């Protein structure tokens, strides 16, 4: 058996696959999940800073409202909505729905549109209500 190991067919790796919608959806679910895990640091910073006193909270607020901070938060908002919608699709698939490829692709399109729309709506409302627009 071990002498044949070198001749075994290899599974095609990421470079030789033609990109498909379902593949992009799956990869994006994982990537957004990893990004959100990193984003937890921002939430921890917020509550720890607030609990430590006004001065440390002001430092957090300075970063969160800086251009870089706002770009990060915008990205995380998109990641949250995508991971949320895509996660709901996974739960529906666990319950036996959306199992065919056409259904999966349709769901994918809905997920992309809804998560982009919700991200833009969130930031639109945010900027309007804080009087920046």
């Amino acid at each position, binding site marked *: 058996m071990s002498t044949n190991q070198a001749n075994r067919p290899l599974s095609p790796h990421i470079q030789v696959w033609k990109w498909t919608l379902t593949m992009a959806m799956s990869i994006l679910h*994982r990537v957004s*999940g*990893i990004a*959100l*895990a990193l984003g*937890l*640091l921002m*939430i*921890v910073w917020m*509550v*720890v800073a*607030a*609990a*430590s006193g*006004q001065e440390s*909270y*002001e430092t957090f*607020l300075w970063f*969160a*409202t800086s251009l870089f901070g706002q770009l990060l938060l915008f990205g995380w*908002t998109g990641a*949250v909505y995508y991971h*949320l919608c895509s*996660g*709901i699709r*996974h*739960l529906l698939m*666990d319950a036996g729905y959306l199992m065919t490829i056409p259904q999966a692709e349709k769901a994918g399109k809905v997920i992309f549109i809804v998560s982009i729309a919700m991200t833009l709506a*969130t930031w639109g*409302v*945010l900027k309007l*209500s*804080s009087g920046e627009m």
Partner: protein
Amino acid sequence: MANKWEATAFKSPMSRVGGLGSAHSGVHHWLHQKITALANIPLVLWAIWSVMTLAAAGASYDIVRGFFAQPINGILMILFLLSVFYHAALGLQVVIEDYMHSEKMKMLSLIAVKLCLFALTVASVFSVLKLSL
């Protein structure tokens, strides 16, 4: 071996020669990923809504103190942190198991990530308690 069938029937030659047997965890990991996913849906939407409300009000130190002075906000924030951190730990575990091919590096990464997430959970929950009480 405890079970008669483990010795011969239902076991492939590969499985027998590996001598590893059952991992005795089954679908436990998957199930917890799904249960926390379900809990995350309302909790994440509440968290987004809360951050938007705080940001619209200027997100000053006093506003944030006032927010956590409400018991309901402290309770929901702790539930959010526990559910999200546990979900992140389960998700990152799968990512590490998929991509880390050296057994030593895999184990070290798993321990490091889980310890970090646990420390961050304790830090953030403690901070929320300090802000609320």
